[in-house]
């Protein structure tokens, strides 16, 4: 038997798979089925919400986690009822497309390391130091710039292997947005975006890819979403915030950042929370935003989506906490509710 004689079997398997696609779970194409696409970060919580919401008699919500950029493209093309992105769209761009935008859940981007003998939360970083490491200026763990922040911590004289995302992502956007704000050198050389030209390092695909690389490579430094830190028990570092304090990533420090951010004056909630003021605020706090048409072509489905998000913002918050997401602070949740009533109908 040669490899070619297996082709018919493979074809048969393919066609079987195609059949089971059609015969599987009903695709929500009915009047009240809601479809959305975008950020991979919110996929776990959206699918949990969707299941619970449907169980409670609500409409089915079908969410495709194709990435933030894809979500923006799909909602602009009008192929979905809502898009989700970790990067907010500026009000002008929203107005041009006739879209409204509101925050859904909060998370944080966390520096993680793999150094023998270092415990979670032990290492301290400042924004400029993180920028210098990611620029390739600080090359070794024994660099004086690191030692100065971490007196009494014994660090190896080994090169730092920098790990970043290889795919474009909202996580990267929040990370480099923070580095750009805090380091003029980073702003000038690399800038910000969902994918950038990294001066040094290896690229992992997705949060799980970066987490795997950091766990595999000794003396490495990477950045991942907070949920991955908790689920993989990774060694996170503290980061100095705008008030000068070193803060560990946690639900409380993310919420502190969210409540100190000036949401009331941000049109269409266009606000990236990095480097937020406040004593306890974690400096690289991120938000996932939902985009919907203000005047939908399909008002019935749009109304169903709104009903779902109202439910998620009130009843669904306990589940968000259980899955290591951080709910919106109550004030912000109220603002979102008012925005939904006034702007997206």
């Amino acid at each position: 038997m040669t490899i070619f004689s297996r082709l018919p079997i493979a074809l048969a398997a393919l066609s079987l798979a195609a059949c089971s696609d059609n015969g599987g779970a009903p695709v929500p194409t009915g009047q009240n089925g809601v479809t959305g696409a975008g950020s991979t970060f919110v996929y776990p919580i959206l699918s949990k919400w969707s299941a619970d919401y449907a169980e409670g008699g609500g409409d089915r919500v079908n969410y495709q986690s194709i990435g933030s950029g894809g979500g923006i493209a799909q909602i602009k093309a009008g192929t979905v009822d809502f898009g989700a992105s970790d990067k907010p769209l500026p009000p002008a761009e929203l107005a041009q497309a006739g879209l409204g935008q509101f925050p859904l859940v909060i998370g944080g981007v966390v520096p993680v390391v793999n150094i023998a003998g270092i415990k979670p939360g032990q290492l301290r970083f400042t924004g400029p130091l993180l920028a210098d490491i990611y620029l390739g200026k600080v090359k070794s763990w024994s660099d004086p710039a690191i030692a100065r922040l971490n007196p009494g911590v014994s660090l190896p004289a080994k090169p730092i292997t920098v790990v970043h995302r290889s795919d474009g992502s909202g996580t990267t956007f929040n990370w480099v947005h923070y580095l750009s704000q805090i380091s003029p050198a980073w702003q000038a050389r690399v800038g910000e975006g969902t994918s950038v030209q990294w001066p040094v390092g290896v690229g992992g695909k997705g949060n799980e890819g970066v987490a795997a690389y950091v766990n595999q490579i000794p003396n490495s430094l990477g950045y991942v979403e907070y949920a991955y830190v908790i689920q993989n028990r990774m060694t996170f570092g503290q980061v100095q915030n705008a008030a000068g304090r070193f803060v560990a990533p946690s639900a409380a420090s993310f919420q502190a950042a969210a409540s100190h951010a000036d949401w009331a004056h941000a049109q269409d909630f266009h606000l990236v929370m990095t480097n937020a003021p406040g004593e306890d605020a974690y400096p690289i706090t991120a938000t996932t935003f939902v985009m919907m048409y203000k005047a939908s072509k399909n008002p019935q489905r749009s109304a169903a989506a709104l009903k779902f998000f109202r439910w998620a913002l009130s009843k669904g918050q306990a589940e968000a906490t259980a899955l290591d997401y951080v709910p919106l602070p109550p004030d912000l949740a109220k603002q979102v509710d008012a925005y939904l009533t006034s702007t997206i109908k």
Partner: protein
Amino acid sequence: MDASVITQPDAPAFRPRRAHAATRGDRAFRWLTAGAAWLVLFVLVAAAASMAWGGRLAFRTFGWDFITGSDWDAVGQRFGALVPIYGTLVSSAIAMLIAVPISLGIAIFLAEVAPRWIRGPIGLAVELLAAIPSIIYGMWGLFVFAPFMANHIEPWLTERLGPLPILGPLFSGPPIGIGMLTAGIILGIMTIPFISSVMRDVFQAVPPALRESAFALGATPWEVVRKVTIPHTRSAVIGAIFLGFGRALGETMAVTFVLGNAHDFSVSLLMPGNSIAAAIANEFTEADSAIYLSALIALGFLLFVVTFIVLAIAKLMLVRVERKAR
């Protein structure tokens, strides 16, 4: 055979009609097969054309810089494909260095040396390698093989080969286990079944009379392989190698896992790099500007061109080998 023709030789009206029907059937048959062949050509040209069309914005904007440039900056919107092209060729070349000798060994063993009872199981095991999905190779590479490379192979390579004058720069850098060499080795393992099963089939197709006469003249098994089997099957062996090479060039998932996906140019094989297929798989979902998307599609077109050039070189080599053999 047509019995009626033999038993009824005096039925002349019958034969032209049958002949007529046969030619009509022949014509339909010819059209069908030609259609199938042309369809492949059409699909090929259409795929290349649509990728060239999709990438026209990148080609127009950057010109030749798109091929010779090593920038890949989505923020500054400057794109050059040199690093992925280099990574694709180098990782596939490493794969061939590993896969060709091993495949040759497997094929010769299975066709010439092995006792009959062992051929079935080993042949099956090699073909099972081809049935493993590439993502499994990728995950095995990342979680099992990369740490092994980082802890055992790469420190040894750096220590022994690092100080050498010409080879040295190829094996320097921190042992992180992820990079061009690891990707090349994984690709090599993945292409072995493709190359070796074709080679084995052609070795087994060598007419027994040829081999038996060589043995009768007192040739050893080694001499039979070297002087009869391989010369007789030369073009098919080269074909098998390039089948594997073509596969290695386009492999995506396994490479993405262990290549490191870094758009910087590095001579060292231990450092991370990028390949065309991996870059497309990584970046397509979040390509958020028209020029970025166009650059990725143009990258796909370049993969097409690179593969085409490699196969054309293979064809040329084949022609030269055939001519020399005469």
